[in-house]
């Protein structure tokens, strides 16, 4: 923990009117999440925000399962969680989720989206990320292996896919490296100093190009040429050569070349390695970009929004939280699981989705109320399959492979989670009418429907269906209404199918909340 975070905490405790008993002994630091919560709460106090109440443990358990494993819990998992009476059962569940194999399997797809953007989905790269998470690699290691390798064995070789797919266009390469790993979009500074963002000058853009301009190769290999410069023309100026310069403004001088370079040997000197070195020295850009992207993934919006616009003119909405998390992440070996655990067990993640009565809803940038987030196609489809399934899902490799096969077919039919999410009629038509959806409801392979139909009456069917699909007990009014609905259907055999369809296609299932 840095001196700065202690100072923040002390300030908080002294000026926040906390009881003296809560004062920490410096020899035994508080768990990091207490610090994080303190920073959040002091922000809400300063802003006179009345945060929402805490959601139930069951609700945040489901929320976290969707975020960390990409699916709803099975009935068995729900029951195990519900019957656990330990006061920190949610924290324990999160630890268990993060240490399981399924987390690496799923969360690699989240990292893939963060790094690859619209080019996500390459199986080799995804395999590399899964392996990296299983090995508990830090984000710094992944960053280094993606940019400079070593791509010396089968496990690390696919890390080069990120560069490989961007070799043709050095501007795309520069823009994507900078956006994915440093949370900064400098592409506007290509033609001129950025008109809206003071921080970014042409020197920054071409300074970054200079690190990457020698990167070449093709057909499965990435190489670096011994020569090549980033050249640009300033407004009313002459063409000039840009020195390597990191986003901090730190310039790198290239050492003089040896007199007799060995022919056909790869260059000993690598400009990309200089970029990695600069980023690791700075820490700040690498760390805050990842922290912000994880926050956006878990909360539906970055602390800095949009996530690729981290610059002085667009500060974080809760600066103390942003800075502290970025420091903490870098100081703890860029440990991805630690960061996720911190965010997920924090007060902000536990919020209920309803604003406190009387108060006007606080803006989304304060994270004082949980907001609806659309499931990604992967999360939605996986959840439908598992929720309709036979409760035998244990995320074995065979089960995962079987689901993956169906995902490939089904995912493209659903609306992607984008910053400005929009629902399409294409998805609605597919869910309403397609053979592929009907197949999921085929009672032969659908044990939820079979289980429901075996129950003695509609009341029990409604209760079991809501529990299985929404992970909560129905309210009295809800039960009454749905029982009445089931009874009123002329086709009584199909009524249960239709109830389950309506639940799965309803907003409570389609969105994380």
């Amino acid at each position: 923990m840095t001196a700065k975070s202690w100072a923040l905490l002390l300030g908080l405790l002294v000026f926040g009117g906390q009881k003296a008993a809560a004062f920490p002994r410096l020899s035994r630091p508080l768990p990091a999440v207490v610090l994080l919560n303190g920073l959040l709460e002091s922000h809400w106090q300063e802003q006179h925000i009345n945060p929402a109440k805490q959601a139930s443990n069951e609700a945040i358990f489901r929320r976290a399962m969707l975020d960390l494993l990409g699916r709803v819990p099975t009935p068995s998992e729900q029951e195990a969680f519900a019957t656990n009476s330990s006061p920190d059962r949610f924290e324990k569940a999160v630890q268990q989720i993060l240490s399981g194999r399924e987390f690496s399997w799923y969360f690699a797809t989240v990292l893939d989206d963060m790094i690859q953007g619209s080019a996500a989905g390459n199986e080799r790269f995804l395999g590399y990320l899964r392996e990296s998470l299983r090995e508990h690699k830090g984000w710094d290691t992944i960053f280094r292996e993606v940019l400079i390798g070593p791509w010396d064995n089968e496990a690390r070789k696919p890390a080069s896919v990120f560069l490989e797919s961007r070799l043709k266009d050095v501007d795309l390469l520069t823009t994507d490296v900078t956006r994915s790993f440093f949370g900064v979009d400098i592409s506007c500074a290509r033609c001129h100093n950025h008109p809206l963002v003071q921080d970014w000058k042409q020197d920054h853009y071409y300074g970054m190009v200079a690190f990457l301009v020698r990167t070449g190769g093709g057909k499965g290999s990435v190489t670096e040429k011994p020569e090549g410069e980033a050249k640009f023309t300033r407004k009313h100026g002459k063409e000039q050569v840009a020195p390597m310069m990191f986003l901090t403004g730190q310039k790198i001088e290239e050492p003089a070349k040896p007199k007799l370079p060995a022919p056909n040997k790869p260059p000993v000197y690598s400009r990309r390695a200089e970029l990695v070195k600069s980023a690791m020295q700075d820490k700040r850009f690498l760390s805050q970009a990842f922290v912000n992207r994880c926050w956006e993934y878990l909360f539906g919006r970055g602390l800095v929004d949009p996530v690729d616009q981290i610059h002085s003119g667009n500060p974080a909405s809760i600066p103390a939280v942003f800075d502290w998390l970025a420091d903490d992440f870098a100081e703890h070996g860029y440990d991805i699981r630690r960061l996720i655990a911190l965010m997920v067990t924090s007060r902000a993640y536990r919020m209920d989705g309803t604003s406190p009565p009387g108060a006007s809803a606080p803006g989304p940038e304060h994270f004082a109320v949980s907001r609806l987030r659309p499931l990604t196609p992967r999360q939605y489809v996986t959840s439908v399959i598992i929720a309709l399934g036979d409760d035998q899902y244990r995320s074995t490799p065979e089960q995962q492979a079987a689901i993956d096969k169906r995902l490939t077919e089904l995912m493209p039919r659903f609306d992607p989670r984008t910053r400005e999410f929009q629902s399409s009629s294409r998805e609605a038509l597919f869910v309403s009418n397609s053979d592929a959806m009907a197949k999921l409801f085929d009672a032969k392979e659908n044990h939820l429907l079979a289980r429901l139909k075996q129950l003695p009456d509609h009341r029990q069917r409604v209760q079991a269906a809501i529990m299985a699909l929404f992970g909560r007990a129905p309210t009295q009014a809800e039960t009454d209404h749905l029982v009445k609905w089931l009874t009123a259907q002329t086709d009584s055999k199909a009524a249960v199918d239709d109830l389950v369809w309506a639940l799965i296609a309803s907003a409570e299932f389609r969105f994380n909340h």
Partner: protein
Amino acid sequence: MRWCGSPEHRIHRRSFLGGTLAGLVSTVNLGGIGLSAAEPTIAPLRQRGKQVIFIWLAGGSSQFETWDPKPGRDTGGPFRTIGTSIPGYHVCELMPNIASRMKHIAVVRSLNTVQSEHEQAADLVSIGRPKEAALDYPEIGVVMSKELAVPDSELPDYVSFFTTSEGRRRPRVGFLGANHSPLLLEKSIRPEDLDPPPGMSEIRHHSREDLRALLSDRFARQQAGSEIVRGYNSAYQKIRGLMRSDHLFNLEKEPLTVRERYGRSPFGQQCLLARRLIEARVPVVKIARGFWDSHHDNFESHRELVPDFDHVFSVLIDDLAARGLLESTLVMVLSEFGRTPVINQDVGRDHFAAAWSVAMAGAGIRGGTIYGQTDADGRAVKDGEANASDLAATIYQAVGIDPRSEYQAGLRPVPLAKEDARVIKEILR
């Protein structure tokens, strides 16, 4: 060059400041309120009721064997030319029907779009500007479907066919988002998933949807950020209209004589369906006709493709005109590029973006105009050079959409057409 709202990009500085000075700046169309795509577009009067058909000749058709023949030159190939209804203008002899309908058609013979790789060129022409790493631009057709949308219509704003193997490209919705996705007809000329599941009665279908909507509404009522549920429910509401418009996609509903006139080729059927959709007020329809990428035996393949195009395109123009729809419907014939003047060793023509042609008819178009010129061998533009952005701006202008109006993409004002685009006014009415 990338657009970021800088005055260096030759746009009027005040339009960069956006709404604050809107009163002074005619170029800011407050109707086009970008990213918040849910907001309704307030269409200016002149674009009301306008519609568009895009005919995409995928792979790159040859300008020599269509709109810009060079008879008697080394680059000209074996075909002769024929006169048209415009004195002095000749087209390739493979287009006799079009030749006699030139009063409806304008041709731009002077496109120089530089990019001659399929994917990149198709992106360039269909979004009307170079792709950009940081901003995903929507296709021109998608922008038009948003701008020309009919309020409260049950029908999709954009129907896009691509059943041929080449040019299997889904229109990019870009930053406008998924609810501007066209209805895609990929497998047949009938949309997928339009029929209710087998054995399901209409009553059941409605009843389960009503329950879905009710549960969703109740759930959303208590939730922060529930605006997205409204969009979600409205997507489900829209499918009712789509399922009801099933008959539109059924060509059996057309008289036999009409179907015979269009012919039984897939291209003919698609064009007939396009006319049905236009008649039903669908704002944008796109048809793709593949197999133009003639690196081998260019003349043989054009001998097959061009007469089919000539026939179907002429029937479509006649049909639209007879129904009084041509006045309000822009028909655009586009490719990703043209083909080389040099005839290669396989008697083919390769990709060529430096001097090629497009044609258009209908709404806003001054029929009978031939714009621009290439040199004697068709190797370079001699006069009236235009690029992909100019073409996009011209397309928007033709249906009364101001190409300089802006969407707001995050912090960035993004003009519909690239800021340095020039409308080719000469071919517009």
